[in-house]
């Protein structure tokens, strides 16, 4: 059993990584599927953090049943954006709205995105969803203010208070909570995980928990054949 909650360890790793210039960091995740209970707390936490509208999800949890009856095995696979080292979504964007940042995060500039969805078509993992401008409380006497409240992504405050604003009509995806991380906070999925299955940190620091866990286990990445080099590893 760990000596302390791994959130504290990752918090210290994060503070250390933030001392380095962005280009020296390599944010990554290790998801230990053996610890994932399929509670969807990460999915819900993320939806709450970013006030995600209907049809937009950054981190769904895939329910997998393998084997043949009666020898069945049920497992869960949380699927964030993989912040690929060679992201296939970036070169197809015709306006440069999506790009690979120095610290490895694949970002979307909502003010530039025209909503062509080429990035969505070329993501092998279905990690991008489309903000169609809907609200959960649409059709009721009033769209609730909480759905229009601001949220922080990519270090900026965004508002979703108009169907003709910057955010509605854009492709959206997980960004490893880049705004939270920039302020020294762990991604919301890591903090809400009741099984502590999601590890986050600087993969370039061999002493970081995320890198040590990766080195100590036989990890795998999804769809390696696509050549995108995801920065999310599964155990």
């Amino acid at each position, binding site marked *: 059993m760990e000596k302390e909650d791994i959130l504290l360890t990752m918090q210290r790793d994060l503070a250390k990584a933030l001392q380095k210039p962005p280009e020296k960091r390599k944010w990554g995740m290790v998801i230990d599927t053996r610890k994932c209970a399929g509670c969807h707390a990460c999915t819900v936490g993320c939806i709450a953090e970013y006030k995600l509208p*209907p049809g937009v999800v950054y981190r769904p949890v895939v329910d997998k049943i393998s084997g043949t009856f009666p020898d069945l095995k049920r497992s869960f696979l949380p699927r964030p954006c993989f912040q690929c080292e060679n992201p*296939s979504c970036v070169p197809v964007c015709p306006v440069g709205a999506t790009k690979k940042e120095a610290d490895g995060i694949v970002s979307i500039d909502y003010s530039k995105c025209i909503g062509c969805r080429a990035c969505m078509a070329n993501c092998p993992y279905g990690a991008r969803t489309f903000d169609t401008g809907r609200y959960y409380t649409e059709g009721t006497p009033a769209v609730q203010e909480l759905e229009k409240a601001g949220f922080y992504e990519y270090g900026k405050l965004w508002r979703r208070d108009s169907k003709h604003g910057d955010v509605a009509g854009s492709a959206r995806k997980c960004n490893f909570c880049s705004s939270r991380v920039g302020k020294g906070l762990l991604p919301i999925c890591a903090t809400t995980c009741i099984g502590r299955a999601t590890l986050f940190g600087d993969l370039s620091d061999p002493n970081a928990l995320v890198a040590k866990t990766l080195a100590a286990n036989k990890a795998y990445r999804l769809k390696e054949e696509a050549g995108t080099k995801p920065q999310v590893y599964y155990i």
Partner: protein
Amino acid sequence: MSKSLKGIILALFIAGLAAALGKVFFWGEAATNYGAYVPWGLWVALYIFLVGTAAGAAWTGIYAAYSQGGEPKKLTSISLIIAGASLAIGLAFVGLDLGKPLKGISIFFNPSFSSKLAWASWLYLVFFGCLAGYFFTNAKKGFMYAAGVVAAGFVVAEGLFFGSMVARQLWNSLLTPVSFLTSSLAAGSAAVLTIGILSTEETIAEEGVKLPKLVMLAVILHAGVEAVHAVAGAGIEARAMLSSWIYLGVFGLFGVIVPLALLKKGNRMSLAPFALILAGFVAYKYAFVRYGFTAEPLPGLVAALQDAKLTMSYIPSTVEWVVSIGMLAGVIWIADFAINKLTAKERV
């Protein structure tokens, strides 16, 4: 074209325009049925169909000039009018398909040339420049050839854009740009004959005698490319497309076999075979786009969160259909209008 037919076409065009404006300013994406896992549908299919048709019509115009001694005559002008109308409406489709249609123009001010779509967009502009040069200067021959070269450029750019998509097994092939070229020639030449027969039958009879043969060759060429695709095509997406009624029935039977049979046996200047080819190639492009999104990105992803926009199913919405039919009618109406102006000017 009879007055009543013109009236019906104009009414459809107006209805399509009205629905398009409704989508842009009022209903937004709620009026469409594409979503996260099937992000493109009917409008993108019509966009690539019309862009290809524009290119094919331009090449048909060059062929018409070449077959009449090298100088562009009336049929070349008609072909280039059809090319311009097709491209304009094709771009309207892709503009409407955007999540932010009013921002689409930024592709010209803030392009990222790592995307072949940006290259294609700039080439569309150059193509319109070539058409302007052809119709409003005396350097008709030069601009005619330039238009043909630029058209080849944007068709290849579009083909490479789709062909290089690693996430789409159906498209991710060197055959994709080849099929874009062959389908463009088939659709473009068929469009020149369809609209030409509707609008100015006498010109087609005078100058377009060799065109039906060109159409037949182009359709056979494309069918050949598709046969290679069928043999080489592996995976769930290719299998789904190749066994669909849209592909086999509408494209294969009504877009290839029936019109080729009609052209072989019957009157080569009748409207039916060329109109059937056009309908068949619309179906082909739709199947190409739609079945590119057959496979779930990750097994179980759709079931992970329930929402109408997070499914693998896609059937075009009523608004998508109304806009599509209306705007396609718009290509005919605009082309017919411009051809009549051209003909009237020549009579004066």
